[in-house]
């Protein structure tokens, strides 16, 4: 069921599945996956007689396959898996395989609404993407780093445009890589291209490029910025202005450039994972003001608190909340919100979730093998065997908690004020 506004947001708990059972005809059942709306729990299952299928709320898919892997729920709640049939690979969606199949298929991606499902394909030794089963018209010698626009109408990947002979330095230096958008290559080759990314409208693509072993820059729709940098990281489009913002390295220090103009002076030991609010006015990034000390900078100003490692940065739509995680040696995880550390130290934490209208932050956390959620700094008063990342209701007043309590799958709607 989709969109979230149509989900059941009545506060309370429902038992979706009383017990995880492994049917007798299964050799084993793999890790469970919860649907976004919390109404279904699904796992791939290896059949005792050979082959694979899936269990969804305890019911086996009618179809079985030679192999199945990469189980994922789409945002609109369809359970998908990459499957092999008669030696060919395709995608099964709610148990039904696409009509098209390929020599290999991998890397399932979804549009924001979930209506478009994309995957990488290899067919006859050529590579590209397929959308809802339909492959690009043109395939390439190689295609990797795939990306799907938010609306799912466009897809892109880094592609290899010419063959390279073994250890062929000359042709590599001439540049044989580019970006293909919907199967059509940019009219520009580079030595290397990384992390193509769409703007929110899915009309423009920016990517990191290297034009020599030493000259890094950003290309937008195939046109490279005039400036070269010592290194760059992944670009992001400003949703409001359409400008492109990317970390750049100058004389050994990192800053941010926007459309080839420095907007954060290069003074950081690291700067990456920038996020931009929808109004385009707030830019946040994970930075290291000094070697070994990481924090978050908002509009160029670092928070005063730092930790050895900072990850999972997110920003509210209007930029009023910025949240991240920090840790030391992958332990002692802390939640960082607007420059302050929440109380509580965790063995592991997952990416902070900010309510759609801002103002609330929820985080899945784990300690001593038990998982729960922390909401606005307060720990939810129950622990579980497992929880999935929490989801706020569209108005931000409710929180959906999908949890395994021992082997029962629970769907809990909590009121945020009481969570």
């Amino acid at each position, binding site marked *: 069921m989709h969109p979230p506004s149509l989900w059941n947001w009545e506060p309370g708990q429902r038992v979706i599945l009383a017990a995880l059972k492994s049917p007798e005809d299964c*050799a*084993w059942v*793999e*890790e469970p996956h919860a649907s976004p709306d919390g109404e279904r729990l699904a796992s791939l299952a*290896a059949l005792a007689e050979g082959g694979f299928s899936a269990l969804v709320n305890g019911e086996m898919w009618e179809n079985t396959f030679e*192999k199945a*892997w*990469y189980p994922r729920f789409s945002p609109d709640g369809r359970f998908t898996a990459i499957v092999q049939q008669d030696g060919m690979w395709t995608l099964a969606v709610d148990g039904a395989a696409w009509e098209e199949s390929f020599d*290999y298929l*991998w*890397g399932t991606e979804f549009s924001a609404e979930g209506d478009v499902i994309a995957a*990488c394909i*290899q067919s006859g030794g050529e*590579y590209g993407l397929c959308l809802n089963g339909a492959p690009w018209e043109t395939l390439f010698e*190689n295609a*990797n780093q795939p990306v799907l626009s938010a609306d799912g109408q466009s897809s892109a990947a880094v592609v*290899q445009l010419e063959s390279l002979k*073994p*250890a*062929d*330095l*000359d042709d*590599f230096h001439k540049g044989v*890589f580019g970006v293909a958008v919907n199967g059509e290559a940019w009219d520009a080759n580079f*030595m*290397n291209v*990384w992390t193509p990314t769409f703007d929110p409208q899915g009309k423009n693509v920016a990517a990191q490029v*290297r034009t020599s*072993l*030493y000259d*890094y820059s950003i290309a937008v729709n195939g046109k490279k910025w005039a400036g070269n940098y*010592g*290194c760059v990281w992944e670009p992001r489009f400003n949703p409001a202005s359409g400008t492109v913002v990317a970390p750049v*390295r100058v*004389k*050994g220090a990192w800053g941010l450039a926007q459309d080839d103009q420095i907007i954060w002076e290069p003074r950081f*030991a*690291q700067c*990456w994972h920038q996020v931009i609010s929808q109004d385009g006015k707030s830019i946040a990034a994970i930075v*290291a003001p000094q*070697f*070994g000390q*990481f924090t978050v900078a908002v509009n160029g100003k670092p928070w005063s608190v730092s930790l*050895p*490692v900072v*990850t999972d940065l997110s920003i509210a739509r209007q930029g009023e909340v910025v949240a991240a995680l920090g*840790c030391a*040696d*992958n332990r002692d995880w802390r939640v960082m919100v607007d420059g302050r550390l929440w109380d509580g130290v965790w063995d*592991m934490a*997952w990416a902070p979730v900010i309510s759609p209208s801002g103002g609330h932050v929820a985080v899945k956390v*784990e300690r001593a093998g038990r998982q729960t959620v922390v909401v606005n700094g307060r720990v939810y008063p129950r622990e579980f065997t497992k929880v999935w990342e929490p989801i706020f209701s569209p108005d931000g007043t409710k929180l959906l908690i999908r949890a395994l309590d021992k082997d029962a799958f629970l769907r809990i709607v909590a009121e945020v004020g009481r969570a």
Partner: protein
Amino acid sequence: MGITERLIEDAGLRRGVSLLTPEKIEKTIVAVLQGETGARLKTYAETCMRCGMCAEACHFALSHPGDPSYTPAGKVHQTMSVLLDKKGRVDPDFIYGMAQLAYTECNLCRRCVHLCPIGIDTAYIMSTVRRICHKLGCTPQYMQDTAHSHASTFNQMWVKDDEWTDSLMWQEDEAREEFPGLRIPLDKEGADIYYSVIAPEPKFRTQLIYQAAAIMHMAGVDWTMPAQTGWDNSDMCMFSGDFEVMGRLKRQHFESAQKLKVKRIVMGECGHAFRSVYDVGNRWLGWRWHPVPVIHAVEFYWELIQEGKIKLAKKFPGPVTIQDPCNIVRGRGLQQKLREVTRFLVEGDIIEMHPNMEHNFCCAAGGGVINCGPPFKNVRVEGNAVKAEQLKATGVKTIITPCHNCHGGLHDIIHHHKLGMDLKFLSDIIYECMEKPEA
């Protein structure tokens, strides 16, 4: 005596040198020396007394007795010292020789640090020379091709994305014949262990993936392997001097583990990758330590043994000897754990080479030397006659070494010197000797 008398033709070096001008050379050298070095290099340059004690440290020097140009101090004398003295004003022919020496006659093994009375790290100096060579575009052809592969595919052997998971599934299928129910779990979020390997494993040493999966399965380990890039922990860019791509590789590796929220990374039996992950690449990215704990296979197997999770049906017949990989022994101090694991697995003695453990001689393949390819094979084989003598003196049939480069290097030495010895990874022996399901 010197590098100019033993130049070897290499397409990558020749190509790079052909594009150089004196102005470009000087500008590049000055930029690296001023922008990327500091007190450390200056201290080393000013305090080396030319005492010659490092000569006893280097397998190249010991394998070429009477030729000081192979000593660590001699190598610095022919390269960095010249750059500093001439302030970068050297000609392209000099760059060719400097590059050949830095890339193929020094394994960056750091043994000489131990013997230098003032602790000069010649490997750091030679790494800086390599960095300059990279910035000048003068790197051996095969090493540079490996760096290109890293940059283009995030692995060192041009393995395409589908080939990675396809290889894992193939090994999983094979292993299930022997271990019913065995899985190689891909992208399993929250697993205790993220297992990473180097590209030769899916490319042509797939039995190592099979064996790792068998060990994980029988030990009941909660583990995963990534379905997408980041799986290759190797890093020839660290050795070619392309630190920007080195950082890109290590970022991909660590972030793929962070994304899966695993507790630790366990690396397969590779030495140089370990150096890149725990020491060099992570620090280029600004992390003081690795952001996710990294455990080498030696330490991991040691843990499993301590916990009683590896059960043997038999012991491997000894005696054996051990080749200590530089980057996990001199670099991380795993020599005792390596021996404890070996004693657990082997019936019979460990016949030690001398010197051994943290003073062991390098295999002469490490530091990217083997990746410089066929033109330089004889440089490392003949440059490690001392290793052949060490191996022969043990009188054993089996060498255990938990490092891909050591395997490659010793394999060539064994054949060249007709030693008739066998090489084993620890996982070869664990797999051979561990309890397995009854057929």
